[in-house]
């Protein structure tokens, strides 16, 4: 399959290793990966913060860049959620019927990585090897916007060498919420404090998730507390093999 990588601006700039892992993984599974260099940002941050007018050109840009792609896959549940669940709102706001149509056309071809592997490709074992104790945090947008369900866990359970431990109160938000973490920093920290406590209780070496934004938030506290727990994106675990 021809897969267009929707890297997301956040991963492109801050977490390039996640993108590299995705390329390795998808190529290992026999697919051709393309990276359209004209892509920038999906507009999630602007949209969620209330700058919806500013989101319109970004939606336009997205449909121009990816309009012809066979499958568009991203290592971020929240950015995929933005495209799949909220682009139609932005298109409505623009009042441009052509944009509405373009959005309608592109949305069914946009996928979050784990959902793409399990539900679209039917792959449950990607042949990965990762000899570490790992706990998985299901991010809110993967759970409640995209409804990825068990997909990430199915993939993780089939990783060789992994010691997967259940995270208590896993479904609770980590307190990130984009600009929430800055605007309501105190409440955000109270939520994060509980999440960190639960992660530490598992005794895991690694905390995995399908969103680097939440992982940056969680990892920021893990690092501050010198906890020794590493935040690692799901794609990086799935890309690991015995050779690499």
């Amino acid at each position, binding site marked *: 399959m021809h897969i267009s990588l929707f*890297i997301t*601006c956040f*991963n*492109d*700039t*801050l*977490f*390039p*290793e996640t*993108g590299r892992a995705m*390329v390795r993984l998808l190529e290992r599974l026999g697919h051709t990966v393309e*990276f359209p*260099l004209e892509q*920038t*940002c999906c*507009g999630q*941050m*602007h*949209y*969620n*913060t*209330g*700058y*919806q007018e*500013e989101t319109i*050109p*970004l939606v336009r*840009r997205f449909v121009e860049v990816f309009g012809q792609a066979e499958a568009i896959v991203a290592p971020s549940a929240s950015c995929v959620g933005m495209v799949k669940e*909220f682009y139609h*709102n932005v298109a409505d706001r623009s009042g441009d019927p052509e944009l509405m149509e373009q959005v309608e056309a592109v949305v069914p071809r946009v996928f979050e990585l784990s959902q793409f592997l399990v539900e679209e490709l039917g792959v449950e074992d990607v042949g990965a090897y990762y000899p570490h104790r790992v706990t998985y945090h299901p991010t*809110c*947008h993967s*759970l*409640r*916007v995209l409804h990825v369900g068990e997909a990430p866990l199915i993939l993780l359970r089939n990783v060789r060498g992994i010691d997967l431990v259940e995270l208590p109160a896993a479904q*609770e*938000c980590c*307190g990130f*919420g*984009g*600009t*929430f*973490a*800055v*605007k*309501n*920093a*105190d*409440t*955000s*920290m*109270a*939520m*994060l404090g509980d999440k960190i406590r639960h992660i530490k209780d598992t005794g895991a070496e690694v905390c995995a998730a399908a969103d680097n934004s939440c992982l*940056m938030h969680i*990892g*920021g*506290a893990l*690092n*501050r507390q010198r906890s020794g727990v590493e935040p690692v994106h799901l794609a990086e675990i799935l890309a690991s093999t015995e050779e690499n």
Partner: protein
Amino acid sequence: MQTPTFEESAKAYLSDTQLRRNIGHATHTIRDKRQTVVDEMPDWEVLREAGSSLKNRIMRHLDEYLLQLEESVRQAGGQVHWARDAGEANRIIVDLVKEQQVEEVVKVKSITTDEIKLNRALAEEGVRALETDLAELIVQLAGDEPSHILVPAIHKNRAEIRELFRKKLNQGELSDRPEDLAEAARLYLRKKFLSAKVGISGANFAVADTGTVAVVESEGNGRMCTTLPETLITVMGIEKLIPTWRDFEVFMQLLPRSSTAERMNPYNSFWTGVTEGDGPQEFHLVLLDNGRTNVLADEVGRQTLNCIRCSACLNVCPVYERTGGHAYHSVYPGPIGAILTPQLRGLEDEGAASLPYASTLCGACYEVCPVKINIPDVLVHLRGKIVDRKKRAGGLNAKSDPEYIGMRLMARAFKSRSRYERAQKMARVGQKFFVKDGTISKLPGELSGWTAMRDLKPIPNQTFREWWGDRDE
């Protein structure tokens, strides 16, 4: 009117460890119970869909349904009054009460009457309004404000309540067992019920086609107030309608399981006007707008009026769980309050306008809402309105707002590939001032909130696209 912002208020409540324990315990207990009774319903999702459609039907034809309700209530022997705002509603009620020449009225828990501050209006006219729901009584005796829709005194523990009852109800010897505290309230209120001439209630539902009004409760104080007095005055928001009696089969399944997490709550009272020889012989229904028509006018915000006040969204909200209800400065706290309060009060109130930001958009509230109010969607929609308003107001204030500047700069950078790539490089260079030993632990200004508890990893030397370019060569 200006209220404090959520972020200011939350600070104080977050550091109150007793409060956080009380609320954390309560919300988790009821959250788990709700899940159990919802899981035993194979048709839960259809019921939610039906509830949402019925409310949608009501809202889109609200004028017709209200006229129908008015007619049905009149036919059944009741009187209907219309009130545009709190002042008008209070005036109507005060006049009705004074006609009966009483100094005291008994009240069923009603958030709508809290919203219009009815008790204060009655007090100003020399009438004492007696709250009879246990939690409302606690809040009233303490001179406090409710902090939860279902259990308004949930921020108080048994020891605090015992102290309060000792002082205010003259109960010298009193243990802190909930049984004994409830018994003290029973004894105190029984005398009041027996002598009450006027009862005041809210309404959970009113049926347009029969004029039937419903009050859903647990303690029996609702039954007392709606049957013992000779005169009953019910205040309801104009959105509390349902089309027909039969539609109760939807709402009376959704509400108890979502609210008290029971299959059915102990008492539901349904009355249709006046019944000779049984209950109040004079019945008044006050229909209240007080901002609801403004909510109705917003096509996205309109769904907020579907709310049946179950409080399931409060119990699953990670923000409410940490701050409690008082941080919202409204009788409607939690996620539903974060969308209802700013719409009822208007975005001019800075406190109300801070509420749509009191959420991580985690979506837990939408998942449990029995009438499918898409709270995250409305939150984001309201944020949009707030930003649009700021932009229109313009001026130095908006232009010097760091968030506004940041968003504008980034929007511009994302518009073209070359600008975006340049911005990536600039950020990498710019961060050098803050990186120490391979990590960022301190940021200035607005961003200091982040680094108070979290480090930041510096931007790596190579972006993904740079790596991709190198690899292609």
